[in-house]
């Protein structure tokens, strides 16, 4: 079985990395008027949308891992 501490550490690091990536400016369009729209409500809505996606997916992943842990505990007691 995969080391759980290792797994949770790397999953957390990956999610934080993705969230930080979203917080960076949109470099590809830095020169245009819309490209400078990196602050304000629209920007935070994009950030929130991407954060919601990965937090919900992470939540589902955690629920699956917890169910697997319960199965392992039941196996351990038999």
């Amino acid at each position, binding site marked *: 079985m995969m080391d759980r501490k290792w797994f949770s550490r790397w999953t957390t690091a990956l999610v934080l990395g*993705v969230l930080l990536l979203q917080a960076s400016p949109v470099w590809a369009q830095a020169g245009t008027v819309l490209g400078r729209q990196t602050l304000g409500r629209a920007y935070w809505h994009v950030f929130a949308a991407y954060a919601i996606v990965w937090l919900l997916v992470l939540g589902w992943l955690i629920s699956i891992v917890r169910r697997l842990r319960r199965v392992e505990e039941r196996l351990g007691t038999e």
Partner: protein
Amino acid sequence: MNQKQIRWAIGVLGALGVATVLVLHGMVFFWVPTESTMGIVQRIFYIHVPAWWIAFLAFGLVALCSAVYLWLGDERLDRAAVAAAEAGMIFTTIGLLTGPLWGRVAWGTWWEWEPRLTLALILWFIYLGYFLVRRSTVNPEQGKRFAAVVGIIGVLDIPLIHVSVTWLRSLHPQAVILSAENPMNLDGSMGATISVGLLAFTLVFASLFLARYAVGGYEHELDLRDASPGSIQGAEA
């Protein structure tokens, strides 16, 4: 598929899914141009559309597995339907939450009771009902059959959601990917980004669906072992 093959598939699909998600974020935030009328908020499109794609795929799977479960009575199909329904709920929730974040900036309102949004919300409630019906009966087998019926009826909402923007007066933007007249009506880089988004979400869904299905299988085996008389003696022997 045996357990070893399922574990291998979960690992490969999961690794490919994470890699594709990272590529998607790189494309969305560093490569694809900003849409000219909506600005940066249009970037929500690259996760909103794939989320709905997965929601529809998952609910299609629920209906298919439920129909065959009612016909053959194979427990594995019920477990697959439950795994798909969980995924469907997660990705429908994502679609319902990311849409208003776009709508607040584009329309000036979080929510409108217009046909597509209303039908999408109804879909979420139908599948909430799927889980409630499963747990509402004293006899679990009866609950599974009732839920299978809900799963089959619920999927009928999906074509209605799809055609609602063309058949009814709707605020929601027209279809750009599955448009009948002009499919994939997008700039090249935007088309490439949404394609990577669809692939990333599909890989993530496939790995988590298999993982959930496998865990359901282990739980079922343990329940059977616990229920069978003399199981403890058998385990100790």
